[in-house]
C-alpha cells in the first residue's frame, strides 16, 4: 500500500484540484492511502482571490475544498492540525521581522522561502518590478512569506509523520505549491505535477519537475519523438490544430486577442512596404520574465527585456532591417499596483528613440501575431511560446533565453556578443524554404501539443478554461479500466511506468513527411506573397496624418510625443491653443487650423498626452474600414506626475456611466484638451462635427463631461476599449483650487487669481470658480471687479446662493463708490496691450459718459486691453462693444503665429466681460463696407493698421456709422506713427469738434449734417509740416539710423559704443519712441512704421529688405503714402 500525499490548500482552485480528487480517489480504489493537505483558514491573508481578509470568501474556499475531497472519500489534513500554536507564533515573529531589502534571501529554518515566493509576488502584482518600498508590496510579501513558512512547516511535519511514497500537486512552481513541491523533492519524494493542458479540456502532467522547469529544460521524451516522422494524417491534424490556435480556437487558456486575423492588411497596418526586411521580436510579459529569472535554471542573455529590445533595435538599424516588437497580451499589467506596467511605460518612453525602423505593436492592436510571422523574415524571442510558431511559419528564429523551444532548432544565443551574428544568420535564411526545419517544428508541436502537454482523461476535464467537468457517477466508478489515461497515471505512481506512451510502431515514412512539408512550404510562400500586397496597398502606405500638438501656455513637463510613426507622411505641428477663452475659442481655433490641413486624418495631442504610433495606425485602419465614422475613441492609461502608470480608462466600460465621468478619480481625464487627445479624427467629418457643436451651451459649462459624452456616441465614433493613449495628470482641479484658496487666504490676491486663471484654462469656469475669485476680490475690497465676475456667473446660469449672497454684499459697495476707473485699474493691468498710461481710464470714462444703451465700435483690439477698459464701463448696462480685428497682428512678424482671438476673448472672460463685447474677425475695411450705412454707433475707436491710407479709410468708412454727436477716437496720434498722426491732424481735427486729447489718443465729436471730407486738399504742405515735426527732428533720424546700424553689428563690434552713445544723446521722448517700438511693439511691426515714417527711402528699403521680405511677398505697400 502506497502512501500518497496531495497538496491542495487553495480549495477554490477546483479547476486544478479536481484532478487531485480524481487521481486521489482512483489511487485509493487501488489500495493507496491518500491524504490531502487543506487549509482551514490558517492562510487567512492568502490574497490569491484578489482581496485581503475576505472572511466570506475564505470560508467559501475552505468549504469548496473540503466538500469535494470528502465526497471523493479522501482524508484531509487541515493545516491547523499540523501546526502547533508555538510554531504559528514563531512563524508570525519571523514574518514580522522580515527584512525587505533582502527579501530574496529570507529563509525560515533554512528553507529559502524568500526566493520561492518571489515568483508569486511577480505573478500577484503582474509586474517584473518589485518595489519593496511600497507598503502594498511589503504587506503582500510578508503575507506570502508567512503563509509559505506555515506550509513549509506543515509539509515537513506531514512528510515526517506520514512518510508518503508519492506526492501530487498543481504546478510545483506557482504560488505556495512551490513550497510543497520543493520540500517533497528535497526529501526524495517523487511528485506528480499537473497543470492545464494545451488542448481544450486537457491537463498536462510532469514527473518530478515544476511546470517552469519544464519550459526551461525542455520536454523529457523529445529525444525519442524528435526522430519519428509524421504521417500525412498526423501532419494534417497538426496543421489544423495550429490553424485553430492561430485564430484563438480550441485552446485551453484565456484568449486575449479579439480582432480577426487579416493577413492581407498586416503590412499595410504596420506601414511596411512589400520589400521591407522584417525581424519580429516577440516579447514576454515582464512579470513572466522576472519569474523565470527566479528559477535558477533559466538563462537569459540580457538582464532586462528593455535592454534586449534596445540592442535588437540598434542591430536592426545597423543592418537595414525593420523591427516589429510584438508585446505580450499581459504586457500592460494591471492598475492595482503602481509599477505593474512599468515595463510597458519604459518601453514606450524609450521606444520613441528606437528609430523610425521600429514598429511597436501593443497588446490590444488589431494585428495578429500569427499574421506578423508571415510578413517577417526571422523572429527572435526570449521565452515566448510563439517562438515555436515562428518555426511553424517557416522562419528561422533566434532565442535569447533558455527555453524548451530551442530544441526545435532555434538559434540559442547564450552570449550577447554572439547576438548580431545569430540575427544575421537568421535573416539570411530565406523564409519558408527549409523543409527539414519545418518538419522538426511540426514533430515538436505534435509531440508537445497533442501528446506531452495535452493529457485527456475520460473521467475529468477542464471545462471552459476555468471550470470543472467530472464525467462519472460516483468516485467508486474510477476503478481500473474505466479511464485508460487515469490507469496510466495510477500505474506511473504505483509502478513508475512512463507517463507518456512511446510512439507506436511502425513509424511513418520520412518521404511522406517531406512531401507534406514541401506542400506546407508552398502554402506558406503563398501567404507571404499575399501579405506583400498589391500596388494599391503599397500606395496607401503613404497615408497622411496630421498631429496637432495642443499647447498649453506655461505648461511644464511635457511628455515627449511619439514622433516615430508607421506613417511616413505624419506631420507634427505645434498649435498654440489657449483654453482660457472656453470651448468656443478652442473650436474656432481648431476649425481654422483643421480647415487648412490636407491630411485626411487628424489627431490632437495635448501637452499632457502622448501615444504610441499604434494609436494612429490602428485608428486609421478602423476609419478606413468604416467610412461613416467621424473618429476613433481610444481608452487611455493615466500617468502620474512621475510618469508612472495609474488607472486605466476604458471607453466601453465607462460608456454606461459616462455622466459620472468627471468626478471619477482619474485626474488626467479632468483636462478637456487631454480628452481631445483620445480621438483620431477623419478630417472631413471633424470640421462639421466641430461646426455643429458650436452652439452647445452645455459644452461651455463643463467640457470634460460634454466631450466624453459626445465621444461615446457610437453612431459617430468607434470606441475602443483598449487604452492606447497615455495621459499625464496635471494638477487636479481640487489641488489647483486648494492652492488658489491658500494664496488668497495668505493675502496673495494676484497669486490666487493667477492660479484661478490656470484652472479656468483647464477646466473652464466650473466649481464656482468665479464665486471664489469674487470672494477674494471682496476681501481685498475690489468690489467692482467682484461684481463683474458675479454677473458673469449669473449669466452663465451657474449662479448659486453664494453668488447671490456675494452680490448682496458687493453691489452696495459699488453704489457707494464713484464708479471710477481706479476700481478696475488692476484688472485692466492684467491684459497685455500698448496703451499709454492714462488712456485706459480715458476710454473707460468716455464709454461711461455714453448712454446706457450705447453702441461702441473698436477697430483694432489686439489682446483686448482697451476692450477690457471699455468693457468695465458696460457692466450692468446695455452698452455693447463691437470689435473688428484680424486677431493675427500686422502682416509681418506675427503672420505665422496663430490667432490671438482666444487671448482677447480669454481676457474678457476672465473678468466676466465677454458678453459686453463681440468680435468680427477680418480686415476692417471689408467688414466696415459690409455694414449697413446707418448711424448706430455712439463711439468709434480707431486703432488698427497705422498706415496713413488704412487709418484714413477706417475713418472714412466708420464716419457715416457714427450718430451725430457721437465720438470718434484715434490711437497713436503722434509723429512716431505718422499715419495715425496725419489722419488726425489733417482730417480728424477739421471734421470733428470738441477735441479731447489723452497723450497720444485723440478724440472728437461728430457734428450733425457734416459730410465726409478728407481735407487733404486743405493741407498741401503736409509733407513739409511732417518734415518739420518729424524729419526736422534730426535726433529722431539720427537715433533711428544708429539703431538700425546697431542691429547689423556683431556683439563685439567696437563701433557699438559709439552708436549707443548717439542713441543715448537723443531726447528721452525719441529714445522712448524707438526703444519702446523695438522692445514692446515688436509684434506690431514698429520698424516698418518708423522706416516709412522717416521717409528716408534708403533706410526704408534696407529695413524692408531685411525685416519685411515677408511683407513684400504679401503685397504690402512699403512705399510711403506721404
Amino acid at each position, binding site marked *: 500500500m502506497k502512501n500518497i500525499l496531495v497538496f491542495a490548500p487553495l480549495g477554490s482552485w477546483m479547476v486544478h484540484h479536481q484532478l487531485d480528487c480524481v487521481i486521489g480517489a482512483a489511487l485509493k480504489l487501488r489500495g493507496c492511502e491518500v491524504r490531502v493537505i487543506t487549509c482551514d483558514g490558517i492562510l487567512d491573508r492568502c490574497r490569491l482571490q484578489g482581496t485581503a481578509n475576505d472572511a466570506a470568501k475564505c470560508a467559501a474556499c475552505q468549504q469548496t475544498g473540503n466538500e469535494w475531497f470528502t465526497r471523493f472519500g479522501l482524508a484531509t489534513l487541515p493545516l491547523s492540525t499540523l501546526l502547533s500554536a508555538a510554531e504559528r507564533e514563531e512563524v508570525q515573529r519571523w514574518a514580522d521581522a522580515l527584512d525587505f531589502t533582502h527579501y530574496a534571501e529570507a529563509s525560515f529554518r533554512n528553507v529559502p522561502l524568500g526566493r520561492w515566493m518571489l515568483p508569486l509576488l511577480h505573478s500577484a502584482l503582474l509586474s517584473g518590478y518589485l518595489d519593496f518600498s511600497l507598503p502594498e508590496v511589503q504587506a503582500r510579501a510578508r503575507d506570502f512569506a508567512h503563509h509559505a513558512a506555515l506550509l513549509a512547516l506543515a509539509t515537513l511535519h506531514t512528510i515526517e509523520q506520514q512518510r508518503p511514497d508519492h506526492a501530487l500537486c498543481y504546478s510545483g512552481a506557482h504560488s505556495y505549491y512551490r513550497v510543497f513541491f520543493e520540500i517533497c523533492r528535497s526529501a526524495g519524494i517523487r511528485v506528480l505535477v499537473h497543470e492545464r493542458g494545451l488542448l481544450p479540456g486537457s491537463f498536462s502532467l510532469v514527473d518530478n519537475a515544476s511546470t517552469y522547469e519544464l519550459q526551461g529544460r525542455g520536454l523529457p521524451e523529445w529525444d525519442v519523438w524528435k526522430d519519428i516522422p509524421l504521417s500525412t494524417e498526423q501532419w494534417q491534424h497538426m496543421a489544423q490544430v495550429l490553424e485553430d490556435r492561430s485564430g484563438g480556437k480550441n485552446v485551453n487558456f484565456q484568449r486575449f486577442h479579439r480582432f480577426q486575423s487579416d493577413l492581407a492588411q498586416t503590412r499595410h497596418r504596420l506601414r511596411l512596404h512589400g520589400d521591407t526586411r522584417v525581424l519580429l521580436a516577440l516579447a514576454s510579459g515582464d512579470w513572466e520574465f522576472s519569474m523565470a529569472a527566479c528559477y535558477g535554471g533559466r538563462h537569459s542573455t540580457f538582464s532586462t527585456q528593455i535592454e534586449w529590445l534596445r540592442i535588437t533595435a540598434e542591430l536592426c538599424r545597423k543592418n537595414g532591417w525593420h523591427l516589429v516588437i510584438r508585446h505580450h497580451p499581459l504586457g500592460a499589467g494591471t492598475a492595482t499596483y503602481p509599477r505593474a506596467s512599468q515595463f510597458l511605460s519604459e518601453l514606450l518612453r524609450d521606444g520613441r528613440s528606437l528609430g523610425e525602423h521600429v514598429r511597436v505593436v501593443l497588446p490590444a492592436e488589431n494585428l495578429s501575431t500569427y499574421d506578423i510571422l508571415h510578413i517577417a523574415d526571422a523572429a527572435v524571442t526570449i521565452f515566448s511560446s510563439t517562438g515555436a510558431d515562428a518555426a511553424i511559419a517557416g522562419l528561422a528564429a533566434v532565442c535569447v533565453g533558455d527555453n524548451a523551444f530551442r530544441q526545435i532548432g532555434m538559434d540559442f544565443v547564450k552570449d550577447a556578443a554572439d547576438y548580431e551574428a545569430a540575427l544575421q544568420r537568421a535573416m539570411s535564411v530565406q523564409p519558408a524554404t527549409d523543409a527539414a526545419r519545418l518538419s522538426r517544428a511540426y514533430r515538436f508541436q505534435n509531440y508537445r501539443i497533442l501528446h506531452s502537454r495535452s493529457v485527456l482523461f475520460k473521467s475529468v476535464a477542464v471545462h471552459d478554461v476555468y471550470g470543472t467537468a467530472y464525467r462519472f457517477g460516483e468516485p467508486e466508478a474510477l476503478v481500473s479500466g474505466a479511464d485508460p489515461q487515469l490507469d496510466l497515471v495510477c500505474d506511473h505512481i504505483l509502478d513508475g511506468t512512463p507517463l507518456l506512451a512511446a510512439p507506436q510502431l511502425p513509424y511513418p515514412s520520412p518521404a511522406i513527411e517531406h512531401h507534406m512539408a514541401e506542400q506546407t512550404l508552398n502554402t506558406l510562400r503563398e501567404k507571404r506573397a499575399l501579405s506583400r500586397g498589391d500596388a494599391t496597398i503599397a500606395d496607401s502606405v503613404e497615408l497622411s496624418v496630421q498631429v496637432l500638438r495642443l499647447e498649453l501656455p506655461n505648461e511644464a513637463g511635457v511628455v515627449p510625443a511619439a514622433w516615430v510613426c508607421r506613417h511616413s507622411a505624419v506631420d507634427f505641428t505645434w498649435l498654440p491653443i489657449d483654453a482660457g477663452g472656453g470651448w468656443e475659442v478652442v473650436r474656432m481655433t481648431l476649425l481654422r487650423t483643421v480647415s487648412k490641413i490636407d491630411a485626411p486624418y487628424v489627431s490632437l495631442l495635448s501637452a499632457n498626452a502622448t501615444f504610441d504610433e499604434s494609436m494612429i495606425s490602428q485608428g486609421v485602419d478602423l476609419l478606413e474600414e468604416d467610412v461613416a465614422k467621424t473618429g476613433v475613441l481610444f481608452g487611455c492609461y493615466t500617468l502620474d506626475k512621475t510618469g508612472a502608470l495609474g488607472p486605466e480608462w476604458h471607453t466601453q466600460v465607462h460608456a454606461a456611466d459616462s455622466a459620472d465621468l468627471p468626478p471619477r478619480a482619474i485626474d488626467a481625464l479632468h483636462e478637456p484638451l487631454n480628452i481631445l487627445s483620445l480621438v483620431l479624427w477623419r478630417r472631413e467629418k471633424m470640421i462639421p462635427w466641430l461646426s455643429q457643436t458650436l452652439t452647445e451651451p452645455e459644452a461651455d459649462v463643463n467640457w470634460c463631461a460634454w466631450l466624453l459624452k459626445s465621444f461615446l456616441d457610437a453612431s459617430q465614433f468607434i470606441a475602443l476599449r483598449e487604452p492606447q493613449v497615455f495621459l499625464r495628470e496635471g494638477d487636479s482641479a481640487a489641488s489647483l483650487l486648494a492652492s488658489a484658496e491658500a494664496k488668497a487666504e495668505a493675502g496673495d490676491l494676484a497669486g490666487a487669481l493667477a492660479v484661478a486663471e490656470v484652472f479656468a484654462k483647464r477646466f473652464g469656469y466650473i466649481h464656482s470658480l468665479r464665486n471664489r475669485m469674487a470672494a477674494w476680490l471682496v476681501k481685498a475690497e475690489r468690489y467692482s471687479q467682484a461684481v463683474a465676475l458675479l*454677473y458673469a456667473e*449669473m*449669466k452663465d*446660469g*451657474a*449662479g*448659486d*446662493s453664494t*453668488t*447671490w*449672497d456675494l*452680490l*448682496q*454684499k458687493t*453691489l*452696495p*459697495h*459699488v*453704489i*457707494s*463708490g*464713484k*464708479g471710477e476707473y481706479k476700481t478696475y485699474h488692476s484688472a485692466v493691468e492684467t491684459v497685455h496691450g500698448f496703451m499709454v498710461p492714462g488712456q485706459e481710464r480715458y476710454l473707460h470714462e468716455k464709454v461711461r459718459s455714453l448712454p*446706457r444703451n450705447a453702441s461702441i465700435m473698436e477697430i483694432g483690439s489686439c489682446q483686448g486691453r482697451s476692450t477690457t477698459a471699455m468693457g468695465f464701463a*458696460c*457692466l*450692468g*448696462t*446695455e452698452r455693447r462693444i463691437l470689435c473688428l480685428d484680424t486677431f493675427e497682428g500686422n502682416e509681418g512678424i506675427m503672420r505665422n503665429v496663430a490667432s490671438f482671438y482666444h487671448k482677447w476673448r480669454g481676457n474678457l472672460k476672465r473678468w466676466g466681460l465677454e458678453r459686453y463685447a463681440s468680435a468680427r474677425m477680418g480686415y476692417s475695411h471689408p467688414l466696415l463696407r459690409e455694414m449697413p450705412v446707418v448711424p448706430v454707433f455712439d463711439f468709434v475707436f480707431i486703432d488698427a493698421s497705422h498706415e496713413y491710407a488704412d487709418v484714413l479709410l477706417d475713418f472714412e468708412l466708420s464716419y457715416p456709422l457714427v450718430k451725430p454727436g457721437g465720438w470718434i477716437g484715434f490711437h497713436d496720434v503722434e509723429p512716431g506713427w505718422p499715419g495715425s498722426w496725419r489722419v488726425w491732424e489733417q482730417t480728424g481735427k477739421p471734421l470733428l469738434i470738441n477735441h479731447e486729447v489723452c497723450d497720444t489718443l485723440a478724440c472728437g465729436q461728430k457734428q450733425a449734417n457734416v459730410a465726409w471730407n478728407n481735407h487733404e486738399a486743405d493741407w498741401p504742405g503736409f509733407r513739409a509740416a511732417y518734415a518739420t515735426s518729424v524729419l526736422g527732428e534730426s535726433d529722431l533720424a539720427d537715433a533711428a539710423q544708429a539703431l538700425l546700424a546697431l542691429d547689423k553689428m556683431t556683439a563685439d563690434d567696437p563701433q557699438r559704443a559709439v552708436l549707443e552713445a548717439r542713441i543715448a544723446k537723443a531726447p528721452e521722448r525719441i529714445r522712448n519712441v524707438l526703444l519702446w517700438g523695438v522692445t514692446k511693439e515688436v509684434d506690431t511691426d514698429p520698424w516698418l512704421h518708423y522706416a516709412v515714417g522717416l521717409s528716408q527711402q534708403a533706410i526704408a528699403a534696407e529695413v524692408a529688405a531685411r525685416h519685411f521680405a515677408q511683407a513684400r511677398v504679401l503685397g504690402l505697400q512699403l512705399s510711403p503714402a506721404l
Partner: protein
Amino acid sequence: MKFQQIHTFYPAYLRRFYSSHPGLLDAPHAELQAPLLADGFGASHMWASALAKCGHKTQLIIANDVIAQTRWATETLGTMKLKKKSEWVREISLEQVNRFQPDVLHLGDPVAFDMSFVRRLKVRPKWVIGWRAAPTPDTVDWKGMDLMLSHLDSGVKFAWKHGVRDAQSFYPGFCQWIADAVADQTKDYDVVFCGQWTPDHERRNKLIAKLAKASLGKEHPFNFGLFLECADPTQFPEAVRKLNQGSRWGMAMYRALRSGRIALNAEIDMGRGSAGNMRFFEATGVGSCLLTEHHDNVGRYFQPDKEIVTFKGSDDCLAKLNDLLDNPEKIESIAKAGQRRCLTEHEVDTRMKALEALLASKPSALTSWARAAFKRL
C-alpha cells in the same frame, strides 16, 4: 391715492429669476420689474399694479432685489453713501419711500420693514398697512401701524396683541392673467403638491409623506407630483424623495399646480382653523380641483364638494382622493366650478376694490379696553 408697496422675495427665487433672465442683469431699472411681475411670484405684490389700473399712482419695491435696488440707486442717485452697507435693503427703500411720499405704504414684509422703518421716514404716510400670514417673531415693532391684514385669524390676533391700530381679515386673491398664461398646461399628474417642507409645516409634511407612500403602493396607486422646497432634502421620507421634483416658483409653480388634476393644499401649522392661504386661490385659479383641509371658514371662499373638496385628517384625505380619482368627471366639474368662483369673486382686481373700500372707511382704532382684552387672549 399714492400707493407704495414694499415686499421682499425669497432670495432663492430672485437668484433663479435672474439666472433665467440674464439679460436683465444689464437692463435699466425701469425695465426690471415688468418681467418679474410677469413671472407672477405671488398675488399680494400684484396690488400695486391692480390699483394702478384703478387710477392710483402706485409703486412696488422689491426691497431685497439687489440688482434692481442698486440699479435704481445708481440711475437715480449716481452714488449713494451707505453708512452700513449691510443695511442696504432698508436704506435704499427708505430713500425710495422718501422720494415717493405715498399716502398708503403697504409693508408686504412687516418683519423686515416694521414701524422702526416707518419712523425714519421724513414724512409718515397717512396709512401704514401690513400683510402677514406666516409666523412672526415677538420682537417685531408694529406699534402704531394703522392696519394689519391677514387671512389667518391667528395673524389678526397676533397683530392686535402687538399694538396695531386695527387688524382685519383679508386675502390677496388671484390674477386672471395668470390663469390665461398657464391654460395650455397639460394635466400630467393625478395629484400635485407645490410648497415648502419645513418644521413649520410638520402636520402637512406627515400628510404628504402618507400620500406619497400610498401613491407608490399597490392598492390604489396614483400619479403624485411633488414640487417641494426643502433646505435639507435628505430628511425626506423615501417615498417623498422618490417623487419630489424640486421647488417651483413663479410661473413654473402655477404650471406645476395646473399640471395636476387635483391640487393638494394644507395650511401652515399656525394657520390651523383658517382657510384662505395663497395656494387656496392659486390652485383653484389655475383650474385644478382643490383638495384642501377643512376649516370652519372654508365656505367663506368656496363651496365644499361643489367648488372644492375638503378633508379632515390624513385618512379622510386619502379616502377623498381615491374617491375623486375614481370619478374623473367629478374632478373636472369641481375644478371648473372652483376656477369660475376664484376668477370672479376672488380675482385681484375685485380684492383691490375691497381694499380701496377698507382704506376709504378708515376704521377707528380699537378702544383701549378692546386692545387690553385682546392682549389677554
